[in-house]
Structure formats: structure tokens, C-alpha cells
């Protein structure tokens, strides 16, 4: 265990080893480790952000759903009201129409009745005149005859 030249050899090889390590070994390994650390940190941050986004989206979706439900209920209510009003209107119109038709029919019947009565009266008068003409024949003049017919017609 004497100190000899070995100590210098040792120092030289140590210097070479440290140089080699500093040149080719330490930087790539440490850089890779730092880069991975950064990647993992980024990944965790992204996951946090995604969770927050998801929560927000869920809130928004629930809000949207509630709104849609409210809107749908409104639409149903409105359409029901509209249907009722249409129904009422139709009913009222139908009633009105029926009334109108009834009135027209009654008027028609009245008119027909009057016309028939008039016709009947004329026919009866003529029959009476014809009968009387046959009974009286020559005894009554033409003028007196027409007078008689007129008075009879007025009486009927």
C-alpha cells in the first residue's frame, strides 16, 4: 500500500470518467426525467381541467333539460287551449248555421202555405161561379155575374 504512480493514473481516469459522464450520460437522462415529470404534471392538470369541464357540461345539460321540459309543458298547454277554442268556435258556428237553416225552412213553409191557400181560394171561387152560372144561366147578366164573383171572392 505504497503511494505510487497509480494515484496519478487514478486521477486521470477519474477526470476522463467525469468528463464522459458530463458529456454523454448525465444530460440525456436528467433531461428525459425532467421532460417526463413535466408531461405527468401536464397530464394531471389536463385531467383536472377535464373534470371541471365535465361538471360544467353536466350542469349546463341539466339546465337545458329543465328549460326544454318547461317549454314543452307550455306548448302542450297552449295547444290544448287552442283546441278548445277551435271546438267552441265550431260548435257556435254549427248552432248558428242550424238556426239559420231552420228559419229559412220555416219561411219557405209559410210561403208555400200562403201560395197554396191563395190558389185554393181562387179555384173554389171559380168552382162556385161555374156552379152558380150553371144554376142561374140566362137570368143573370154578364155584368151582374162578375159582380157576384168578386163579392164571393172577397168573402172567401
Amino acid at each position, binding site marked *: 500500500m505504497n503511494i505510487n*504512480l497509480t494515484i496519478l*493514473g487514478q486521477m486521470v481516469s477519474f477526470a476522463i470518467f467525469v468528463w464522459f459522464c458530463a458529456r454523454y450520460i448525465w444530460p440525456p437522462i436528467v433531461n428525459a426525467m425532467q421532460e417526463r415529470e413535466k408531461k405527468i404534471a401536464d397530464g394531471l392538470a389536463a385531467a383536472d381541467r377535464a373534470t371541471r369541464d365535465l361538471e360544467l357540461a353536466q350542469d349546463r345539460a341539466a339546465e337545458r333539460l329543465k328549460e326544454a321540459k318547461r317549454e314543452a309543458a307550455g306548448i302542450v298547454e297552449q295547444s290544448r287551449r287552442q283546441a278548445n277554442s277551435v271546438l267552441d268556435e265550431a260548435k257556435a258556428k254549427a248552432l248558428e248555421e242550424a238556426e239559420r237553416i231552420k228559419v229559412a225552412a220555416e219561411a219557405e213553409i209559410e210561403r208555400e202555405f200562403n201560395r197554396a191557400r191563395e190558389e185554393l181560394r181562387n179555384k173554389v171561387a171559380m168552382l162556385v161561379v161555374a156552379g152558380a152560372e150553371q144554376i142561374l144561366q140566362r137570368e143573370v147578366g154578364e155584368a151582374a155575374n162578375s159582380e157576384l164573383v168578386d163579392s164571393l171572392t172577397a168573402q172567401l
Partner: protein
Amino acid sequence: MASESGASSGEYISHHLTNLTLGQRPDGSWGIAHSNEEIAQMGFWAINLDTLGFSVVLGALFLLLFHWVARRVTTGVPGRSQNLIEMTVEFVNNNIKSMFTHDSKTIGPLALTVFVWVLLMNVMDLVPVDLLPRLAELTGVPYLKVVPSTDVNVTMGLALSVFLLILFFSVKQKGAGGFAAELCFHPFGKIAAPINFILESVTLIAKPISLGLRLFGNLYAGEMIFILIALLPWWIQWTLSVPWAIFHILIIFLQAFIFMVLTIVYLAMAFAVEEH
């Protein structure tokens, strides 16, 4: 067992603690030392081939493994090997973040290299003590010390490198004057500058020495105990070597960790600009 094959326990231990040394012999020829005396004669101008070989191979193993993963690194889901590497890097990086608040491109690779390299060198301690030296002996290699961090050259080499970095960054961050001021004016104010300088110099120099010797001492002692256990009869060895190995796993990791932490702390101190 060496003791069973005739050699004394002392020789066995000393054989295991001797490095394979290449150096200049007294007669001027270069070669591998075959005894401790020869090594002593070689003095400073010698190289421990086993130490340097194992430490460089382990360091290269570390770099190859990490580089292989670094080239295929993905920011997506990591594979099994990438996971292991990333765990190691993150462990080192967390320690740096908690202790080193300044901005530096050097500290990360430095701490990672120190931690993994020292850990790998310490792990060699768990290889059975006789396995590699015996195999080496069969191929004619006289000595082989397997654990690089039980060689004071390795630990002090690392500690001295850290010390040079401390000096470099101190001067870079504070300027030569600022660094000198920190050494001279610190504990007792400007009047007692010489005393301050002595105290602060001791503090400064104690850093690399304690750093290097702590690792050396722990691993040397651990290896020594494995060697002593290997002296027992073969059928009883496991009762001691298994518990010690399990306990030693802790020491292996702990010493690598301490070396790294102290490196970071010392450099953090070098970067800190104090107010005067």
C-alpha cells in the same frame, strides 16, 4: 488454503494485501515486482496494475451501462434497465438538490461518477477473497489485489481530485483574493490572520485526507476480515463469512454514499461566498 498448503498465515495475509506492481527495479530494468522488498525499492515510480486495471474496467463498465441506457432513453414509460439507471440518477440528484443550492453543470456528473464508481469498486469486496488471486496465480501472475478501493492510491486519488476541484471552484467563485480572505479572516477576524490561516489550512487539508482515508480504512478493514475468515477451516468459514458479507453490503453502499455526499458538501462549501 494457504495455511494448509504449507505457507504461514502471515505470508497468506501479506500475499493478499500486496499489489501487482510494475516498476523500475534497482538494476534499471522494468518489470513486475515479485516481493514486497522489490516493491519498496521501486518507490513512487511504479504502477499497481491490478488496482488500475480493475478500477478502469469497473469505471468503463459504469460508463458503458449508463451510456447504453442514455442513448435509448425515453420520456415515456421506462423499461427495466432505464428504471434502474433513473433510480440511481434520481437518488444522486435528490442528494445534490438537498445539499447543493448553487448552479453548476459539473456537480451532477461528478457525484454520479463518484457514487457508482466507488460502489462498483467496493462491490468487488464481495467476490470470494481467494477466487481471483488463485486463478491469477495459476496463470503465473504473482499478486492480485481485487478490490481497488482497498488501495490507498485509488481513494487518495479520488480525494485529491475532489480537493483540486474544491480549490478550482473556490478560486473561480470567490476570486483568488476572496479565497485567501476566507482562509485568513475567518474564525477570529482580521487581527488574528496568521492563526486563522493555520486553522483554516488544516481544515482545508483535512478534507481530502479524511475523505480518502475513510473509504480506504473501511474497505481495507472489511477485506482484512474476509482474509482472516479465509484462514479458518473451510467447513466453518460460512458461519462467519456469510454474516460478514451481508453486513458488508451495508458498508459497501454506505461508504460510496458517504464519499458522494462529502464530495457534494465540500463543493457546496467551495461555491458558497461568505460575507465578511
